[in-house]
């Protein structure tokens, strides 16, 4: 269970507030107008934006002062999720050991993860030799070996076509189901939310609203959301 207790986040000068609870193993879409602070919310949970007030609590532990890499979090950014000079296998291996000193069992785990996302034949390639969809798959393989209970996606599939994006969302859905992780996913497309999310957090007016059931919220949007959806 992830608790955001009266959180105030420094969003490059102005403050963003959030005060709600995300139950375990939920899949949450974070939607709202661009510039409203969707990425800031995700970034604060990951440890990249300073929390100036309130507490961020994961299963009873306060995360406020915990370094990004020590949080129970796996994260994919909008772009640059792979190191261009490292092979797919190395990029995935980083999820197990940041210095790439892998045991035989860990190497096995890496190749299993690469196979699981359908890149078995491409483990030795560099990211530049992969298509956009394949790059996303490689990044997801790393998320898989990281096995963190909290997965944060900051629109990593925004550059993909709709079919490919849906494919990735379905893959994310499967991986999250298998591992029982909690998912928070930034999106500006309501159909993404419908596809994968149990609940939706609406971010607007310097505020992240508590999660609401996806279907109910999108079918019957409050005024702020209606303005955004158009």
């Amino acid at each position, binding site marked *: 269970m992830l608790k955001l207790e009266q959180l105030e986040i*420094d969003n490059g000068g102005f403050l963003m507030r959030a005060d709600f609870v995300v139950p375990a193993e939920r899949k949450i879409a974070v939607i709202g107008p661009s510039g409203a602070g969707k990425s800031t919310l995700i970034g604060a949970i*990951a440890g990249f934006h300073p929390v*100036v007030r309130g507490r961020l609590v994961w299963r009873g532990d306060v995360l406020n002062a915990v370094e990004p890499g020590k949080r129970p979090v796996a994260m994919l950014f909008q772009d640059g999720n792979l190191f261009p000079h490292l092979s797919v296998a190395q990029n995935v291996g980083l999820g197990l050991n*940041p210095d790439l000193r892998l045991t035989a069992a860990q190497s096995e785990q890496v190749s299993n993860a690469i196979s699981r996302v359908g890149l078995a034949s491409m483990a030795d390639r560099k990211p530049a030799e992969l298509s956009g969809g394949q790059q996303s798959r490689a990044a997801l393989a790393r998320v898989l070996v990281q096995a963190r209970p909290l997965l944060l996606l900051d629109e990593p599939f925004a550059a993909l076509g709709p079919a490919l994006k849906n494919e990735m969302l379905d893959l994310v859905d499967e991986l999250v189901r298998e591992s029982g992780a909690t998912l928070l996913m930034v999106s500006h497309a309501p159909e993404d939310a419908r596809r994968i999310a149990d609940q939706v957090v609406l971010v607007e007016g310097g505020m992240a609203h508590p999660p609401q059931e996806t279907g109910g919220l999108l079918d019957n949007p409050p005024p702020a959301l209606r303005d955004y959806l158009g």
Partner: protein
Amino acid sequence: MAERAQPITSGSGLGAAALVAALILGALLAVALRAESGRGMGASDWAAVRFTAGQAALSALFSVALAVPLARALARRRFMGRRLLIALLGAPFILPVIVAVLGLLAVFGRNGWISMALGWVGLPPVSIYGLHGVVVAHVFFNLPLATRLILQGWQEIPAERFRLAAQLGAGSRAIWRLLEWPMLLRIVPSVLAVIFAICLTSFAVALTLGGGPKATTIELAIYQAFRFDFDLARAAMLSCVQIVLTGCAALIALRAAQGEGFGSGLDRPVQRWDANSTGARLMDGGIIGTVTLFLLMPLAAIVMAGVPGLALLPGSVFVATMNSLLVAVLSTGATLALAIPMAIAVALGRARLVELAGLLGLAASPLVIGTGLFVILYPLADPFALALPVTALVNAVMALPFALRILVPRARQVVTRYGPLALSLDMAGGPFLRRVLLPRMRAQIGFAAGLSAALSMGDLGVIALFADPERATLPLQVYRLMGAYQMQAAAGAALLLLMLSMALFWSLDRGGRWHAEA
């Protein structure tokens, strides 16, 4: 805003900067304390100041004015020998000054190729001594450096941007305005400042092509006061003047624009679709041809004169060669050990302090630091016995500003782009350094190491102050052979020096230069 988390700390960089600052400021302090305040500047001292600043300004201006069209031509043309030419552009800067001067004399001297050609049509020979000779020599050395630095700026524009521009149907002019001009605005001021500062501290060129009351640099005047009169007070007074002058240049260099870089692209080769018009082709071809000739002729002259001399090398040349290699290895190791942590610290935003320490190397000329170290060492030990380690140390400090200029932009780019990802993977510290930062900086580290090694190998500066008859580096030995009118042996030793410097530079730079390929 609160301090952002970073995948690496700036501690060792700050330490390295403190070390450099202590060394240089210590030497400067020693010089300042030694200078006699009662004695003012004589007329010849003022002449040296005017000459020093004037020739440096002219040299920087001519070098950059030629480098911009050349870099542009090289950035957008694919032709046979392009790779070789880019490698050659590394040559004059790392070319030992004494070797290049021999080559320039053979081409532009009174008995050189140009004068010979003029003689055939009944014109008087040209002379390369004096202001114009010094400027020609400095342009010869610094035009290629300027071109490489500016070309690097061009190549830091990701291939994706050119692809996007081509896709948008942008022609040469639009690409110039959108991508190239902003890049130049960012790069050129610092290139101008660096070349101006290099030329301010010119010693070996002035020693060989200048001289006399009309063409003496401050650096040369320090040397003369030191060696000929052993007048430490006057050397120290001139050093103070040099400090003020180069300090100002360093401030200008620091103020020069250092805007945000372009975003990084994946490592795809750069390809261009614009500039296929005949006019553009002719312009690019012309500038490439002219500069190639200007750079190649002196090199060819050295090789032609040097090959017969190789057989005549005295044993002293081989001892000097070993000394030079030792100095180069020590100095390169020291440069990297200082520059890499400092570049990381600058990339993390501790720019002011660390960059200032790095620029102290420009602010203080080799002979000034040499004079300072001599003053410090004199009461403690025999300064002449320490000639080689002191030379290596001073060389490392001198190479530092260039190494930083090469390393910092890349370090900044890597930290900005991959810092958050690394942090989220818990890659802080050693793993980030080994797995991300150093591999992503490989090209720049190779270039910096190559420059540092070759500069040290060919340096004729501090060693001239410190050396006794038994101890010499290879460049000093060449100068001594010239002075003894053993011109054949001098040419042979110069060729040996040239080959060793090039070998050092190539082997180090090559590993990193895959980016310049295609």
